[in-house]
Structures are given as C-alpha cells and as structure tokens.
C-alpha cells in the first residue's frame, strides 16, 4: 500500500483518570478501533477506523470517552474544501465509485425550516385538543368520482383499495437485507400498534412477518426479489418502486456477503450471491408499461389492494406524477433527494434529485390543475424530521408522509453514515448476528411507538392552534403556511405567501 494522504476525521479522547479498562469499548466497536495494551495496562485506539457512531461513548460506564472532530486541517480554501480534496485522494487511490449512506449531509436549503405555521387568534378560535376530538385519521387511495345508488336509493359504499391509517405517518421502505431482522421486526410491531404501515422494501417478506400483513406494504422493485402471489396478497398495499430519493436513477446492490440463509430464502436468491436490482424495470419503458404492471398487480390481488407507485423527486416531477395518476395507481409516493439509503454512490446522493418540498408543491398543484388530484393520494418522504415537517407537508398537499431515517434514529441510529460497511454497531443496518442482537425489537418498537405518539400529540396541538380539528382540512391548506426568507420563485413554486402577508 502506498502513502495514505488521509488523516482520520475523528479523534478519540479518552480520559485516562476515568477509564477503568473494562474493555467495553473494545467489545462494542465492530470497527475494531479500541485495543487493550497489556504492556501499558491501558486502552489505546486506532482512530483511523472510527466512524463516530457513538456506540462506545454511549456504553462506556464511566463516561471516559468522547469523539471529536479533528482539528487537523488543510490550508483554508473556500473552493477546495477538505472533503473535496480527500475524495480525490480516495478515488486516486482506489479507482472506484465512492459509496455513502443515509441522506446527503450537504448544506442545501431545507424548505421545511423556511416555512412557518399559522395559528388562530380571536376571529377564528383555536380548538382545545384536550376537550375536543382532534382527528388524524386518513384514508389513502383513489376517491370515487361519482355517487352510485342501489334500487332503494342508498349510496353504494364500495371502498376497496383504501388504506385506513390512524395517523398520517408511515414507515418507508427498508428492505430486509439493508436493515436487520430485529430492525424490521421493530417496525412491524410498531406499525401494528400505531394503526399504520411499514414497508418491506425490495427484500421480500420474511416468513415470520406475515402475521403483520394488515400493516405491511409489500414492495415490488425491479429485481422482483421475493415476489410471489402469497407475498403480494400478504400486505395491505403493493408498492412499485421506480425510484428512490437518495439515488434517483440508480438501482440497488446488496453485497453477497450479506445474503445469509434467511435473506437468501426471503429474497429467493442463492446464498451469498450479490443481489443487484437495476434502476429500470426491464418490462417498463414507458408510462403505458407501468400501467400494465399496475393492472397486473391489481389482477393478481383481485382489485382489493391499492397500488402505490414510488418515484424519486426529480426535474419535471409534476408531469411524471400526472402520468402515474393516469396509470391506475392509487397512491403516488415521492421521495425527496434528502432521503436515506443503505448504500448510494456518493456523487449521486449529493447531487441528483430535488428537495421534496418543491416536488410536493408542484405535483399537488399540477394534479389539481388537471382536475385529477382525487385520482390518487400523495405520500412524501425524504427527510421528514419532526411533527412540524409533517404538518407542513400536509398543508402543502400531501395525504401522508413516509419516514425512514427518523425511525432509524428512534431505534438508536447515530447517523454515522456507514451503513454500507455492514458494521452497524447499533444492530440496525447489519446482518452480523452479534450486532443484530444489540437491537431488542421490543425496546425498538416501543421507541418507535413513543416517537410517533409524541409527534401525533404535537400535530394535534398545532392543528388545534390553527382551528382545524381534522387532518382532511389541513391537506393542501397552503394558507396555513408562510415563507420566511424565500425568494419569489421559491414562494411561487411552494404556492405560499411570505410571512407578514
């Protein structure tokens, strides 16, 4: 190996007075950072291996550890920043595509943070959620466009193809493979308890999880991993994945090393074979082809389940969504470019796609202009971080949101962004049995339930403050939002006024 130009990004600070050499850090770090130096009788560390996942820090019984950003620095240069130089060193050394995980850490505008929510004063009363019902129930799916009556004149109430959810928040697609069995189980239990849905991702459905079917969305991606009639019928809805926010235009790759027995059986692929799902579905080269798959899946499930089409937020997304709305899909899921993933080419993660806020606003507006907003429900994801993000998304026009990164954080993820290494110390993005064990699904699901319950309380409080007591009346209610520090074009796309107006 030649010279490595890279200096470790983090330094491990160990307070030797506090360290009792219990060696917990050594056992907890899958990256093999910590060692016991028997000669000196104390712990040492190879910081070049540290990914700053905080596992050792969190478990150190004497709080002897902290990880800090190194102050080693290049000569300051606003154009050639440290990370740019280091990435060049890396590629010059390996000749490879740089891989990264989770959402882009780049400093793009977060439009959620540039919108403010309204509250009632005097002329229209706030509603007290402690005294009055505050409804967050939502139905997803195509709405009928005409009323039909039976011979007695009663309305025919045919509502197949609707997803009923008690809260407008679902867990977004994460495959068994990209995340662990225990992470999946946590999501499944939590979705059932919360009256919402989790999503299998493209990894198929583990046999143990079929009984969570009523709260499961099964995904069909280009690789068709684990797709068979029982799988399609097991879930409450089927999602066709065309794209993903963190890596639009890119398929998936689960390295063979992660394809152990369970995953091989669930995905229906050979043991230890790389699972590559290409970006294109090789039977879909047009919107008409998509329509055929939508109807093939409807046929396969006797028209009882809504079909979701998931796309990444990209340029011209509103025209794409209009096509999907006319393809027979019941729900469109749009994933913004800040969405997370287990592994994405770094340049793509950081440069391809558009923010979900802008995509959502323009899709909702376009579907309304075309008079087809009732044909589909809109679900958005791609960095929904809090209950106020949820409120803002719904006011812009979403029916519901998908969360994934927030859910993983609730499970303990520290956003170290090295899921692709397979060494997730928190037992989330790993298949290593020793690491998987670290996540207790009962505790994990409780954390998820707590998180969403807390968000739901906050949503109800904010709705009450707006004088709104039903989520339906918030949907597309853009008067409830004002921009702050946005330019005219941004305000126009978002369809909102500036604060003070």
């Amino acid at each position, binding site marked *: 190996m030649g010279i490595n130009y890279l200096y470790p990004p983090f330094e491990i600070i160990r307070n030797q007075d506090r360290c009792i050499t219990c060696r917990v850090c050594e056992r907890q770090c899958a990256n093999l950072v910590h060692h016991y130096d028997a000669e000196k009788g104390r712990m040492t560390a190879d910081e070049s291996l540290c990914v700053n996942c905080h596992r050792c820090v969190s478990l150190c019984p004497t709080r002897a550890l902290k990880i800090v950003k190194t102050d080693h620095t290049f000569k300051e240069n606003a154009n050639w920043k440290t990370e740019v130089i280091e990435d060049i060193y890396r590629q010059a050394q390996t000749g490879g595509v740089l891989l990264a995980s989770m959402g882009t850490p780049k400093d793009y505008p977060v439009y959620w943070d540039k919108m403010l929510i309204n509250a*009632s004063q005097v*002329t*229209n*009363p706030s*509603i007290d959620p402690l005294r*009055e*019902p505050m*409804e967050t*129930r939502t*139905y997803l799916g195509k*709405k*009928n466009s*005409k*009323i039909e009556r039976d011979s007695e004149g*009663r*309305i025919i*109430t045919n*509502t197949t193809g*609707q997803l009923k959810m008690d809260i407008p928040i679902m867990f977004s697609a994460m495959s068994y493979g990209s995340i662990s069995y225990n992470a999946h189980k946590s999501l499944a239990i939590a979705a059932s308890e919360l009256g919402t849905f989790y999503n299998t991702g493209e990894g198929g459905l583990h046999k143990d999880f079929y009984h969570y079917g009523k709260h499961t969305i099964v995904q069909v991606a280009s690789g068709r991993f684990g797709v068979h009639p029982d799988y399609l019928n097991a879930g409450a809805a089927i999602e066709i994945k065309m794209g993903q926010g963190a890596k639009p235009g890119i398929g998936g790759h689960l390295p063979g090393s992660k394809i152990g027995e369970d995953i091989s059986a669930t995905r229906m692929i050979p043991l230890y074979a790389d699972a590559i799902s290409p970006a294109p579905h090789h039977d879909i080269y047009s919107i008409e082809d998509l329509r055929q798959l939508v109807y093939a899946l409807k046929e396969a499930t006797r028209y009882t389940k809504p079909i979701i089409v998931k796309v990444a937020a990209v340029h011209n997304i509103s025209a794409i969504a209009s096509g999907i709305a006319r393809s027979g899909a019941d729900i469109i899921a749009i994933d913004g470019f800040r969405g997370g993933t287990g592994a994405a080419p770094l340049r793509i993660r950081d440069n391809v796609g558009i923010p979900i806020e802008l995509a959502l606003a323009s899709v909702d507006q376009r579907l*309304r202009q075309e*008079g087809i*907003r*009732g044909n589909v429900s809109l679900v958005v994801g791609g960095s929904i971080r809090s209950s106020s993000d949820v409120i803002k998304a719904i006011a812009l*026009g979403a029916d519901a949101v998908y969360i994934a990164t927030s859910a993983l954080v609730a499970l303990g993820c520290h956003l170290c962004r090295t899921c692709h290494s397979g060494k997730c110390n928190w037992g989330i993005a790993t298949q290593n049995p020793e690491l998987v064990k670290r996540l207790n699904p009962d505790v994990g699901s409780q954390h998820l339930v707590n998180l969403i319950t807390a968000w739901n309380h906050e949503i109800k409080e904010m709705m009450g403050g*707006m*004088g*709104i*007591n*039903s989520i*339906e*009346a*918030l*949907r*597309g*209610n*853009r*008067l*409830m939002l004002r921009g702050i520090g946005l330019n*005219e074009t941004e305000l126009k796309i978002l369809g909102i*006024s500036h604060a003070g*107006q």
Partner: protein
Amino acid sequence: MDKLSMVDAFFHARGVHTMDGYHQQMPLEGEVRIPSGCAISGIIDRSGKRFSARDAITSISVMHDRSNGLGGGFAGYGIYPEYKDYTALHIFYYSSEAKRACEDFLEEHFDLINLSKIPTKKHPAITDVPLIWRYFVTALPTKLSFSQLDEDEYTARCVIRINREIEGAYVFSSGKDMGVFKAVGYPEDVGEFYMLDEYEGYSWTVHGRYPTNTPGWWGGSHPFSLLSYSVVHNGEISSYDANRRYIEMYGYACTLQTDTEVITYMIDYLHRRMGLTLEEVSHVLAAPFWSTIERKDEKERAEYTYLRNTFASMLITGPFSIILGFKNGLMALNDRLKLRSLVAAEKGSRVYLASEEAAIRVIEPNPDRLWYPSGGKAVIVTLDSVQEGEEHGYQLPVSAL
C-alpha cells in the same frame, strides 16, 4: 406576483381606472382576505304563503352590533312568480363599458325576456352605488344543445365566466324565482335601499357582515349565490384553502376569497352535480367525528365513512353557521363543534332561524318551539315539511323561556 401588484392588477381587471359613477379606493375582495364575524337570519313559510322582507329586516336589525356596516344583504325566494321559469340575473356594473360587454355576452348566450334597473331608493347610509341591473333570461336553445350541458350547468358556467372574465361586471344572483339583494351598509339599510318591503316571497334570508378590517365591496357582501342556492354565513373557516383548492378542480373560480363563496360552490357541487341529498351534504361539510361514525349501525357507518372519505377535502373546519336558501326550502347548519350560535324556532307554518334568539323573538315572541340545533346536524325545512329538528339539537320548552 407580490401583493401590491396583485392589487394593481385586480383594480385593472375590475376596470376601476375607467369606471364612471363609482369609485373605490380600497382594495377589493379578492386581494385581501378578511376574517369576518356576522349575523344571519332566515324565515320560511312552509305553506308557501308569500310575505315581505319586513320581518327579516326587523330580525336582523336586533343584531345590529354583530355587523359593522360593511356589508349586508338578502335572498328572497318566490319573489318573481310572473317570471318563475326564467333565470333572474342580478348584476353589478362598475362602468358602462362593463355593462355593454356583459350585455353582449348575455345576448350571445341567452334569450333576454326582460331587463331593467333594479329599483332602489336613495339612502344616506348607502353610497358608492354601482349600476345594478336585472335580466330575466333563458338559455339560447341552439347554444344550449351545442354545449351538451343541462341548463343549470350552462347557466352556472356563463355566470362564472362573466365574473372571471368581464372587467367590472359581477353577477351576484342567478336563480329562478329568487333573487339576492346586497350592498355595503348595515342590512336594515340595505333592505330599505332595495325597497324589499315591496317584494313578497315564501322565504327570506338575511346577513349582516362584520369583517374586522374590510374594504367592503358590494360583491363581497352576502348572501353569496349560484343558481338558486344562496348562502349566508357567520364564521371564518380554517379549512378555507383546503376547500378552495379542491373545489377549484371542478370549474369553480373562487375569485372573492370569502368562505361563503367556497361553501356555496361546495353545496352546488355536492347537491346539484353529485346528486347528494342535503342531509348527505351536511354529512360531508360538517362530517361527524370518526368516533361518532364508529358508533353507528353497520349500514350507516359504511355510508358516513364513504361520504367522509370520498369528499374528504370538502370537510369544513373552524366556526360556521350557515343558512342555505334553495328552491322550496332552507337549511341551517352549524360546524360540528358548534363554534357559532344558531337558533331555530317554529310557529304554525313559519320556521325561523337566526344567530340569536332575540332576533327571532322580536318577530315571533311566542314560538311553538325553539331549539338550538346541535353542531353538524342540519335543520332542513322545505315547503311541506321540517326534517329533523326535534331529534337533533337541544330543545328548550317554550314555557321556560
């Protein structure tokens, strides 16, 4: 477009720069959304007996302080028996060019049976009066058949087109055997101004407006009306933009940005176009809570769920009490939390609806019964019957009052 240039454009669109005989300095409805309070009242004689608007004027005058002089108006049903088969268009004009352009449009689309200025008398409290004209029309048969629409839809589209496209013309009433009369002023003065004593109808609704900071524009006064539906409303709905953005998909243009306008359009859509009964309409606009729906028997639960889900974006939240006037009847409806007052009373063949009990007692001191309809429970009165009422709402024994 920023707010100021929107205001400019709106003035321009309304022909303010060229209008003669009318000048309005303040921005109009449409550029500025003004939350409003209000008073409402309605009277119907179920026997179909026609009576003047005098009682309605008296009733609303009791609630003087609920309005602030920036808007008032009436809707009368059964007032044009001699022209009952024709659509009565009431139109405000802000310039003679607007009148010419609008009349050209009317000539092109309708047979004009009769036209005249709407009679008014000078009133010190009513100023800045636009030209106010009335036309009795019927759709041109060739145009109508060419359009492949039914007559109501044809008329509605023409009205929406005039309001959207013809600068300085505003159709504020377009029903048959009914008419809306409205102005900037206190409602009792508006009644005198239009000499409503001289009209007779089987039902009247009236509105006194209290926008908290309003330009006060004639067209922005209530009732708001399309075809034979007219709505008077007290409240400020928090679902406005959700409702507006949804209903606009179906060809309605909410140019005035008032809650009442969007409520009127939703009722037109649900009742006339979707064929829901008025009771079903009330289950959409003021849908029962899911917890209430869950307690219903299976069939009803399915129906309520279906309506609420199918027309989810037409649920109204925030305070409202409305009185809907329609052909042969009145409907009163409160928001599901009953955030605004609404009282109903009955005496013989007359049914009274108002924001306040005093507004009923001033014209009928001894009603046979008087009750406070529950939130979300419609009181529907038609010429031969009163639906609901008793079972819904809190009824006080009259003797105890």
